[in-house]
Structures are given as structure tokens and as C-alpha cells.
């Protein structure tokens, strides 16, 4: 019997995500805290860079768009790291990036500072003081 040339992957794959979670203190409206980056880029392949970013989503996206310092911080990140999602779930508001292989799953100081700044906006939005 010939081997399937395009086997369907199943089971755990070499794709990881680290979710940076802010735990809510008060009940929140989920759709207000939704946000993701919309990127405009320049260049191709290895030289592809983020030229500008815009947050799209709920009320939180408007707050993140007004933070110029955060925008500058994201522009310094790599193209892959600049894809950021903010997803509210029942037990916490999750900030995460794209799926990465086990080899790529790293955290830099710059990336952590971006996530922490987004988390500070979420805390302010939830009515608790940021650290």
C-alpha cells in the first residue's frame, strides 16, 4: 500500500503559545476587551518590517490606539512578534502572539514590556490600579 504523501497531522503539534493573563477582579463585558493588531508592513521576506500598527476591536482597542509609546514599542518588535491578540475569557484577559515552535518559544525584555503595558491598560479598564 503506498504511503500517504500528505498525512493529516493529529495529536500534539510542535506549536506553542504563551498566554499572558490578567485576572479580573470585577465582572467585565467580554467584547469591550477584545483587541488585535492590524499591521502595515514594508519589504519582503527577511527584510519585512512593521511600518505602522492599528488596534482593532472593542473599547480597549481605542485606548491602545491612543498610547503612542506602546505603538513605538511594538514597531521595534519583529514582524512575527508584532501580531498581538487580546482575548477576554471567563477567568482572565489573555494577551498572546502567534503560534511558535518549541525552538522559537522565547521571551525578550522588549516583548514582555509590550505585554505588560497592554496589561496595565486592561487593569485600568477593569478599574484596578496598574503596578
Amino acid at each position, binding site marked *: 500500500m503506498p504511503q500517504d504523501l500528505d498525512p493529516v497531522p493529529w495529536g*500534539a503539534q510542535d506549536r506553542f503559545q504563551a498566554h499572558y493573563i490578567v485576572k479580573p477582579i470585577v465582572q467585565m463585558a467580554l467584547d469591550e476587551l477584545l483587541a488585535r493588531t492590524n499591521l502595515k508592513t514594508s519589504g519582503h521576506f527577511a527584510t519585512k518590517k512593521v511600518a505602522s500598527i492599528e488596534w482593532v476591536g472593542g473599547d480597549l482597542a481605542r485606548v491602545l490606539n491612543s498610547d503612542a509609546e506602546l505603538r513605538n514599542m511594538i514597531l521595534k518588535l519583529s514582524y512575527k512578534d508584532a501580531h498581538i491578540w487580546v482575548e477576554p475569557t471567563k477567568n482572565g484577559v489573555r494577551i498572546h502572539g502567534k503560534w511558535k515552535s518549541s525552538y522559537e518559544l522565547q521571551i525578550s525584555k522588549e516583548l514582555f514590556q509590550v505585554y505588560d503595558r497592554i496589561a496595565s491598560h486592561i487593569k485600568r479598564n477593569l478599574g484596578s490600579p496598574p503596578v
Partner: protein
Amino acid sequence: MHDSESDTFPVKSTREQFRELFEKIGVKAETEQIDTDEVEKGDYYSKYFSHSPAMVTNHGCLKIKDANIDVVQIIQKG
């Protein structure tokens, strides 16, 4: 030995490896026992975005100190 598996195996868990990465960048973090944090019990995705995977594996959490982020959870697809 022409096995597809590597000859060496990491003895550290994924969250322990991640804690060491945090230590390198000066962020205080401590590993938690798997399946003990509240965030591990509910949904991991809001399902508002189309990329949400159907099945994931939980690799546990790290508690972050002195930051706006409370917990970091490691998730694997599938």
C-alpha cells in the same frame, strides 16, 4: 539507532524552561503545580477570533511578580 526520537530528553518541564527565560530578562516568576490555577479550568480562547484551535494541551502556569500580568500559561496546539 535510526529512531526518529532524539537521544537526549529535556528533564525540565516547559514552564520550568520558561521560568529560566524570565529569570534571564529580570522578571520574577515562579512555577505552579499543573492544573491548580483558576485560569486552567475555563476556556483558553474567547472564540471571537477565527484562529482559535479546537484542541490544546495545557503545560501549566507561572505566577509573575511585580508586574501587571498575573499569570503566564503555556499552551500547545493539539
